[in-house]
């Protein structure tokens, strides 16, 4: 079979699967419209009560109070929900590659990407939980090219909360045990929540919006921490706590994550958050600051020597504006984060040579990375929506980043990535969202042209991404 015939067959297969999914969805509509995911079952309310315009996970003001009061509004119910995501990614130019089948795995193919199981909901009048376990259908690839799935712990947030409210005061306070800094945060410009479509593992999805720069803490998830928070008169929010490695009784918070892939932290690593919120009419605004210091061992399998620790200082600012008046939902989110990375001595000031054997500058002792992201979205009648987003990552040039690998390499040593995303989506029933995103790059790995030294330009990574996202 020649290449074009193969492409045609793949295209027909893709169309066939899409048609099948649509048919399945339509067949399921009457079932879905009578059933509810776990929090909706608990309160008996429609998704739009807590999720702005029905866009999960973005929360409405009421959704934020539901979360901050420990997921305890409503009545206990079967605490289980499931979520599944089918996707198709298309990278604009796959020609600048030595091995397209490896660099753009599953390109143009509709795949069942991942599924999550949630154990969530009210436990007592003061205790509730949100625990997510995710199955990645393309977690590993064998030497024969076959894929294997894998299940591991995802976001987890178990909390105790109380609310003292009367006409003169309103104080919510609580404690959260969680595994991902800011997963406890009620605003969706916080790092754990701004990125909302999970990124499929095959490399064809390496350039979709979810894989483009978002603000985030260096520690990532799969750690364990306790934070305490208070929300005063729905105006001032403060949260502080500490994180360590997920070990001992907290090891379930990184269950399923291979030891070599776990984040190993030294000691207790401080996290803090402060935000000001104000509602006026149908408008709701928040401005906030956040930060975390993380001391991370270079090798998760060897935590014997503190001289191998990377020290990260992250500080961020974010803001969110919402306008919620049926049938319109408008959201604008801004987020910025500055990451300072102090490299352990044995990795600093090391010589690096380019492909021709010519010496480059020695590696840095510390690096600075800045990420800015802005997003605006509009949803009509909790059904039809669209968004535009802009992202820009800048940072210190460091020869440690030098990598002459085609497609995923970086010959400038600069982490700069800049681009934008447009998206349209439809939510035909409240448990299903179908979205189409197009992400465009004008800078990648620090350059617009020939960023990998093999002739690939930033614009070659422009990607189209289709997703079907269902929850039940």
């Amino acid at each position, binding site marked *: 079979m020649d290449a074009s015939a193969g492409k045609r067959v793949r295209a027909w297969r893709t169309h066939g699967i899409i048609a099948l999914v649509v048919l399945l969805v339509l067949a399921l509509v009457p079932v879905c419209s009578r059933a509810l995911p776990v929090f909706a079952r608990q309160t008996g309310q*429609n998704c739009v009560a807590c999720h702005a315009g029905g866009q999960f996970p973005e929360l409405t003001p009421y959704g934020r109070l539901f979360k901050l009061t420990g997921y305890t509004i409503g009545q206990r119910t079967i605490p289980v929900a499931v979520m599944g995501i089918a996707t198709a990614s298309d990278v604009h130019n796959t020609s600048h590659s030595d091995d397209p089948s490896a660099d753009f795995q599953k390109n143009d193919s509709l795949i069942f990407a991942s599924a999550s199981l949630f154990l969530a909901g009210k436990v007592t*009048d003061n205790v509730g939980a949100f625990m997510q376990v995710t199955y990645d259908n393309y977690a590993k690839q064998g030497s024969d090219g076959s894929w294997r799935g894998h299940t591991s712990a995802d976001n987890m947030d178990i909390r105790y909360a109380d609310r003292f409210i009367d006409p003169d005061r309103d104080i919510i306070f609580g404690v959260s045990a969680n595994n991902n800094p800011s997963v406890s945060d009620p605003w969706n410009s916080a790092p754990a929540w701004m990125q909302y479509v999970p990124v499929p593992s095959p490399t064809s999805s390496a350039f979709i919006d979810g894989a483009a720069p978002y603000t985030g803490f260096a520690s990532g998830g799969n750690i364990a921490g306790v934070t305490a928070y208070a929300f005063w008169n729905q105006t001032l929010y403060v949260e502080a706590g500490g994180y360590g490695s997920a070990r001992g009784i907290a090891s379930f918070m990184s269950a399923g994550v291979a030891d070599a892939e776990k984040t190993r932290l030294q000691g207790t690593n401080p996290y803090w958050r402060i935000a000001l919120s104000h509602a006026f*009419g149908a408008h709701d605004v928040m401005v906030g600051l956040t930060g975390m210091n993380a001391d991370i061992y270079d090798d998760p399998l060897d935590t014997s020597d503190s001289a191998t620790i990377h020290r990260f200082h992250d500080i961020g600012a974010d803001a969110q504006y919402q306008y919620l008046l049926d049938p319109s939902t408008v959201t604008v989110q801004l987020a910025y984060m500055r990451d300072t990375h102090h490299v352990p001595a044995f990795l600093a000031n090391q010589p690096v040579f380019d492909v021709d054997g010519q010496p480059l500058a020695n590696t840095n002792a510390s690096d600075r990375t800045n990420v800015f992201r802005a997003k605006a979205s509009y949803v009509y009648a909790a059904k039809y929506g669209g968004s535009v987003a802009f992202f820009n990552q800048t940072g210190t040039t460091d020869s440690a980043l030098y990598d002459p690998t085609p497609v995923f390499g970086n010959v400038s040593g600069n982490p700069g990535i800049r681009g934008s995303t447009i998206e349209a989506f439809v939510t035909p029933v409240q448990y299903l969202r179908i979205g189409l995103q197009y992400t465009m790059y004008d800078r990648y790995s620090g350059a617009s042209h020939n960023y990998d030294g093999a002739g690939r330009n930033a614009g070659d990574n422009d990607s189209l991404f289709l997703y079907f996202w269902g929850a039940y």
Partner: protein
Amino acid sequence: MVREYRLTVALAFAALAACTNLPRSRDLGNQDVDGRVLAEQVCSSCHGVTGSAESPNMPNLAGQQKSYLVAQLRGFREKSRQDPAGYEYMWGISRNLTDRQIDELADYFSTQTLRLQRVESAPEHIEAGRSVFTGGVPASGVPACIACHGPDALGTDMYPRLNGQHADYIAKQLAVFQRTDQRPEGAVMKVVAHGLTPEAVENVAAYLQAMPSLATAR
């Protein structure tokens, strides 16, 4: 070791499950929770702790007629009130409320004082709405609102208070009455509102919302 660990966790959860916090409970399935507690812990999240809702997406409840509040909560609970505001937000919240809790909730909100809120509409709409409220639209067969809802639109045992209600909420509910049968308890309004144009709806809603401010200015 593992068995001990599991037992400890199981016992901890059993102990937690037995915990209730009646003075500050958000449990909508516990019929022992007082209506006032539910008003503060749950209803306040959208309607404000004293029934003055900041968002025009949610109706003000402060100073509303008790009989109307009882009828609406029962209508939500029995799913006879079927407009989107009802089924999206209120069906679930009210599904297990007892008659006692409904009575206490209605008592709580009906005895609150509506906070003076900013005027939501332009003066020309408010002025035009005044004539609809006081004189109706005779040419279209629309009677004056004042006849049932009272000169200050504070309502009676039989009719709800409209004074100070969010304009957007009034306009949406008038559309529900005009175009649907989703609020059978308000069937009389289908006839009353039938002849209202969208402009007249906007105007009368503007006037009703501005009434507390107009009274203060006098």
